[in-house]
């Protein structure tokens, strides 16, 4: 408050005083209120780190309990029999299903999302762009269980036609052959996930495209470029890293999505060669489906599979952040 207290605190008081406390003293932050407040806010930050660490530690601990009794190879076993003595379970099917459905979702969603983002920023009539962006913002907030309900009751019957067509014309590839079961397969899951992650990818990409330097675009136009050439030469190169990180965020969502997959897929514990035949499963869907009748050991086994999912999403998100952080201003965490 007054100068006298400032000056008495100026000399570094104790030998413990490191550079940190000297910095604090320099900023005049040594009043008791300040110290309490700093401790509180720093404590919250540390609490977040502790939670992250605790997630890793507790999941690993419980998973190790299950894995130590597992008779099958955790990575390659095509079975999930935690009730057997000795128990046999593995994540091969789940890893395959998770990766395949996420790849389908990304392949469908990313081009369309980039298209919508371009539509909003560069093609739509001025008056339309704002409201469309607002609506897509809102759609990003629709809960996944509602997507799941819609997918299972509305989307699935509509896919009969598409599946029939794929089977007729592309059935020879093997990937698109269809034996005529209900269309509750990996492809259905991929399509639904694509619809779900569309708003997120669109939102982040839109922000990036909007920030593309106006000068570059006008320069290209002045040189006689068409609108598409402007976008290809100045907007897309500028937005590339933003689109990549937006896609990674969407991928993270698609990998961890539980309810939409659980409602739409009719799961089996094997790998289908065809994307159209029902079957397969994902990490999250398997946890939700098996949890209710699982014993404590069964729950530990599910935790082990959850740990794998955790690590995968951690890697994907870490990579996305790494790309974003090179261009700090497009952090998509609020999307």
């Amino acid at each position: 408050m007054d100068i006298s207290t400032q000056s008495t605190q100026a000399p570094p008081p104790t030998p413990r005083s490191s550079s940190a406390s000297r910095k604090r003293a320099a900023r005049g932050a040594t009043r008791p209120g300040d110290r309490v407040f700093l401790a509180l806010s720093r404590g919250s930050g540390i609490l977040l780190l502790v939670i992250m660490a605790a997630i890793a530690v507790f999941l690993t601990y419980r998973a190790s309990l299950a894995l130590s009794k597992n008779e099958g190879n955790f990575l390659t076993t095509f079975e999930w029999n935690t009730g057997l003595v000795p128990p046999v379970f593995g994540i091969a099917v789940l890893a395959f299903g998770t990766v395949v459905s996420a790849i389908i979702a990304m392949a469908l969603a990313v081009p369309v999302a980039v298209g919508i983002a371009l539509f909003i920023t560069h093609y739509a009539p001025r008056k339309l762009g704002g409201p469309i962006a607002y609506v897509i913002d809102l759609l990003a907030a629709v809960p996944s269980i509602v997507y799941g309900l819609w997918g299972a009751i509305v989307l699935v019957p509509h896919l009969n036609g598409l599946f029939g067509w794929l089977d007729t014309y592309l059935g020879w590839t093997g990937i698109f052959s269809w034996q005529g079961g209900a269309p509750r397969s990996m492809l259905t899951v991929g399509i639904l996930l694509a619809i779900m992650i569309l708003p997120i990818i669109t939102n982040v990409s839109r922000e990036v495209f909007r920030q593309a330097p106006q000068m570059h675009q006008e320069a290209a136009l002045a040189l006689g470029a068409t609108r598409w050439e402007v976008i290809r030469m100045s907007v897309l190169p500028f937005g590339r890293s933003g689109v990549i990180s937006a896609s990674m965020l969407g991928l993270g969502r698609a990998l961890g999505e539980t309810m939409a997959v659980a409602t739409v897929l009719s799961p089996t514990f094997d790998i289908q060669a065809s994307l159209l035949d029902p079957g397969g499963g994902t990490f999250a869907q398997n946890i939700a489906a098996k949890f209710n009748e699982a014993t404590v050991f069964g729950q530990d086994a599910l935790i082990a599979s959850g740990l794998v999912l955790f690590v995968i999403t951690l890697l994907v998100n870490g990579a996305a952040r790494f790309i974003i952080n090179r261009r700090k201003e497009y952090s998509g965490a609020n999307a």
Partner: protein
Amino acid sequence: MSNAPVTRKHASTLRGGSLPKWSPWAIAAGSVVAGLGISLAAGLDSKVQWGLIAAIVFVLGTYGFAARVEGRRQAKDRVATSMVWVCFIVAVVPLVSLIWETLKRGAKVFDVYFLSHSMGVVADTETGGGIYHALIGTLEQVGIASLIAVPVGVLTAIYLVEYGRGKLARAVTFFVDVMTGIPSIVAGLFVLSFWILIMGMGYSGFAGAMALAILMMPVVVRSTEEMLKLVPNELREASLALGIPKWRTILKVVLPTSIGGITTGVMLAVARITGETAPVLLLVWGTNFINNNPFSGPQASLPLYIYRQYAAGTPASTDRAWAAALALILFVMILNMGARAIARWKAPKTGR
């Protein structure tokens, strides 16, 4: 133009030919007709396929006409434009359908009775019953989650913006980012492992609330951080120059300035966790009866209710699932729109 007298003959070489303004609409109309014709001729019954065929005809037709009249570069431009429009329409169809179907099917049993009664003695096959117990559960779980997550989140954001330099702040920033990407089911498994399996507690609303809080914290931190950064430094400096301690500056100057944005962020975070099903499925377990105590015994929750009613699979329960989905969407949308409205009114004035 002025120094080189251009004759009429040469003028035509400076300007290439161009399609008339109405041509995209004409091509669109033509391709819709073609799509219908081809589909009917081939006997396709899926309307999605009709639309897809029309879209393909549209893109190809645009290219063909434009390439002939305007040249290759213009044709590419027009194809890009039509692709972007097609993308938009293709994406809008399912999203509109989602909202429309939920409204239409949800309205069937959505009334005051539905909101004010539980599923206590209602079998899956019977009509009647409601979501009162699920509403109570959701409100309590989300409330507790917010009570945990908001103070921690806001304080962390304050630390990052007002104090944070050096390694700890960088680590916190990074892990907050990573934490936003934790799948909800993993948060559920974490609380399951330490609260239920290791500490031996039972399934309860509080367990679910803890998982929801973990999902909520990073969102609150992120949005609060953005808002605090918008507060002009002059305000802080003015306050500090008057001899106000830093903590009072933060409490009395920085937070009030940004409170609108922080409220928005919190409401968006609440909207996001309200729809989370997976952790609730693992930790709260679900019940058909009213349980007002979040600290003991299984509770219900709105998203879980939708899942269970859907899984029951009878016509009556499916109707209830849609009505509950409508209630959930309404709740989330109202929170969202409210949050965005507050954000617009109370946005911190950044000065000039």
